[in-house]
């Protein structure tokens, strides 16, 4: 409870609000994720006490998680890597004229995800830190297999296409320098730009930003009229009721999943949100609705990414290992402020730890209010005529792709991926598995090779370690169950058709 006293000191409260606001905008601008935001703003914090500093940075981190959803939903461009999964259903909802619903769902889901994860944090921090310690490369690889399985399983009738897209993504993810040995791989045409690999944000902006725009333009044939956007209190209340009815379980499960993925070192919020999306879809009664504007497809990743962002603070504080790129920068900050992260931090600097946690509660509440009250503004922006909006989106795509690495190479790649994305969309290939593969590919490869080196190529280790075994069994189930469903459906179809012939 002393934590709340710390959180509500005027300076800390002000830092928290400022952080949330800045995070919201940083997250909403494509290409500028919380990593850049926190890195740019870190120096500001050298001049305030450490607790206020970390509160400020954590608030930015939090705000950016909300903000990322805004451009994902409104423009179809992921504002941050953590919000890619939000575009899958958020953008179709906006096209259907349900942007207000998607935005409300994102805000509420983020709030729930953040709150649930802070509660987990408060209650179970020390045992969870132990859990994170037990997670070695073996477990990490098994978890990655599970993540891929959720996406294969939900391919529905299009399992071959899903597998093809995952493989395509894995090939793209192996471009660049080999993770273990440092040897260059797949450097096409000897272009030096490929040494740094294909950035996931470049792929996502190309496919979702440019590809999506091309598609919309073709559909519209000049007479563009994205459905009318309205917003009203009554509609808002209806949306809240609908969310309670349809998404409460999803929110809870996604938050929990996101939190656990978040506490694993090196995973972070992006895989967490993609896995939550996959889980929500594979558990749904109507998986074919996902990707076409199902509200649960917005709720799952948004709940998960906020939960994961809290989760990734845990290994940072207790093990000194950042759970995500953003927390790595926070970690650097702690050392600068003279706090040694590690098992002793909780006992040596309780005012710091609990002040941080209390301000996460407060930041959560503040951002959800901020977001809900800004929705009318966003809707108003969406009413801009498409002839004006489309060029702005194109430009934002290029700027967003150029900014993170300041590389023209990436801008060309965005154009290429835009065309590829458009063609694949015409051929009805699912895009989500591709994005998943390029995020998780390097993690999976690294953990697999570390395990194989340690075990001298003996794969039985994956079956003898309990956490790994559980993940693999779950993965197998996720692959087999939908296959079984497909067969059942085919059989049923055949039976129906049999009498005719």
């Amino acid at each position, binding site marked *: 409870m002393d934590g709340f006293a710390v959180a509500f000191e005027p300076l800390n409260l002000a830092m928290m609000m400022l952080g949330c606001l800045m995070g919201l905008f940083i997250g909403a601008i494509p290409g500028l994720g919380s990593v850049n935001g926190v890195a740019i703003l870190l120096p500001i914090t050298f001049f305030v006490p450490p607790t206020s500093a970390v509160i400020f940075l954590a608030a930015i981190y939090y705000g950016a998680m909300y903000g990322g959803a805004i451009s994902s939903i409104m423009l179809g461009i992921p504002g941050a890597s953590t919000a890619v999964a939000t575009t899958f259903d958020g953008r179709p909802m906006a096209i259907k004229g349900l942007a207000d619903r998607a935005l409300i769902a994102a805000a509420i889901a983020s709030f729930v995800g953040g709150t649930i994860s802070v509660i987990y944090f408060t209650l179970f921090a020390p045992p969870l830190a132990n859990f994170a310690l037990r997670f070695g490369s073996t477990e990490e690889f098994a978890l990655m297999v599970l993540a891929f399985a959720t996406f294969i399983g939900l391919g529905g009738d299009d399992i071959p296409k899903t597998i093809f897209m995952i493989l395509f993504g894995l090939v793209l993810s192996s471009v660049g320098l080999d993770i273990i040995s440092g040897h260059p791989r797949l450097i096409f045409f000897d272009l030096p730009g490929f040494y740094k690999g294909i950035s996931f944000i470049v792929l996502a902006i190309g496919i979702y930003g440019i590809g999506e725009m091309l598609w919309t333009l073709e559909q519209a044939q000049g007479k563009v009229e994205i459905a009318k956007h309205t917003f009203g209190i009554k509609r808002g209340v209806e949306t809240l009721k609908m969310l309670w009815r349809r998404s409460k379980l999803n929110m809870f499960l996604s938050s929990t999943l996101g939190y656990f993925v978040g506490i694993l070192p090196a995973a972070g919020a992006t895989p967490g949100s993609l896995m939550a999306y996959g889980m929500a879809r594979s558990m749904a009664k109507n998986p074919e609705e996902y990707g076409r504007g199902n509200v649960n497809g917005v709720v799952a990743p948004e709940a998960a990414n906020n939960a994961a962002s809290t989760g990734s603070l845990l290994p940072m504080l207790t093990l000194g290992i950042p759970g995500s790129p953003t927390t790595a920068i926070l970690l650097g*900050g702690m050392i600068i402020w003279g706090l040694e992260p590690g098992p002793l931090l909780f006992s040596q600097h309780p005012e710091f730890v609990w002040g941080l946690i209390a301000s996460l509660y407060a930041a959560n509440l503040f951002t959800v209010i901020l977001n809900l009250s800004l929705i009318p503004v966003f809707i108003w922006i969406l009413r801009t005529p498409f002839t004006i909006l489309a060029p702005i989106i194109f430009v934002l795509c290029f700027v967003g792709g150029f900014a993170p690495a300041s590389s023209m190479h990436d801008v060309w790649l965005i154009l290429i991926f835009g065309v590829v994305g458009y063609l694949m969309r015409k051929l009805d290939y699912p895009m989500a598995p591709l994005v998943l593969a390029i995020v998780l590919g390097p993690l999976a490869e690294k953990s697999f090779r570390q395990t194989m080196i340690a075990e001298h190529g003996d794969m039985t280790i994956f079956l003898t370690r309990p956490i790994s075994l559980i993940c693999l069994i779950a993965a197998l189930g996720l692959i087999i169950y939908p296959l079984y469903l497909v067969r059942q459906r085919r059989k049923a179809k055949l039976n129906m058709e049999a009498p005719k012939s």
Partner: protein
Amino acid sequence: MKFAKTIFLGTFLTLALILTSLGNIAKADWQPQRPIEFVIMAGQGGGADRLARFIQSIIETHDLSPQPVIPINKGGGSGAEALRYLKDSAGNPHIVMATLNSYYTTPLRNPGLGVNIEEFTPIARLAEDTFILWVNSETDIMSVDDYVTAVKAAGSEDWIMGGTGTGQEDSLVTGMLQTAYGFEVTYVPYSGGGTVAKNLIGNHVNSTVNNPSEQMGFYEAGQSRPLAALTPERIPAFPDVPTFAELGHPELVYFMQRSVVAPGGIEADVQAFYRDLFEKVYASDEWKEYCSSKALQCAWLVGDELQSYFTSERDKHEEMLRAAGEIE
């Protein structure tokens, strides 16, 4: 058609506007005109990363640079990503890089990378970092003798040494230990020293040769145990930890240099700006305090002397790598 034209024109105009504003960077008598990229040759959370961010904090708190210094991690492929980036940025005055010893080893192991460190501009060496042999404190290994017995009893298959990338410092130190004591271990590379430290505490590896700063948090919590240091003298922060030299192996001495370099092809006044900047960092109280508490040895070196230090160290590492069978 009219519609398509409008879109095209709009895109073009807005793009043009943004690109001109991005490209509008004037070059005056040398002071940085935009934020300085501080490239780190390793992943987040490791010793190199923490150090670079700490240096950034000194620069910012004392307002030593007119432009912000922004750390950027390019840890891929044992630092190959960073080296290649520095090579491709030749002539760019807004980039400096914090080096580790992979500054020598990575170009040696990847001739295809086309990186020759003599082309880079040396700025300053700030410190030399030390190495210690660590085990988990749950084990009953109390000394190097216990350690050697345990490794030999387990056999190379079952004794896992965790470390940073293959061919980097940790693996070279491991090689030195193997030669000195005549045992074999299985070496598993991780992405950063922080992860290595965590894997020791989680019992995923049996021993590590972390820098003191990477194990400090766990050491203070009593979770890891230092056995011996690879330094000529005892490390002041660890007065009870013997050196390998005391234990009869004076050849087991290895340091990691912590320096700053810039791309090749930059002007002399740019080099002078950065040398002054880092000299102020070196002279700060925070830096001295950091060196003693994290068990680094402050060791200032600049200019041609630094460049010849780099080349002689590179030649030493070439021999070590050849001895380890890493290169031909």
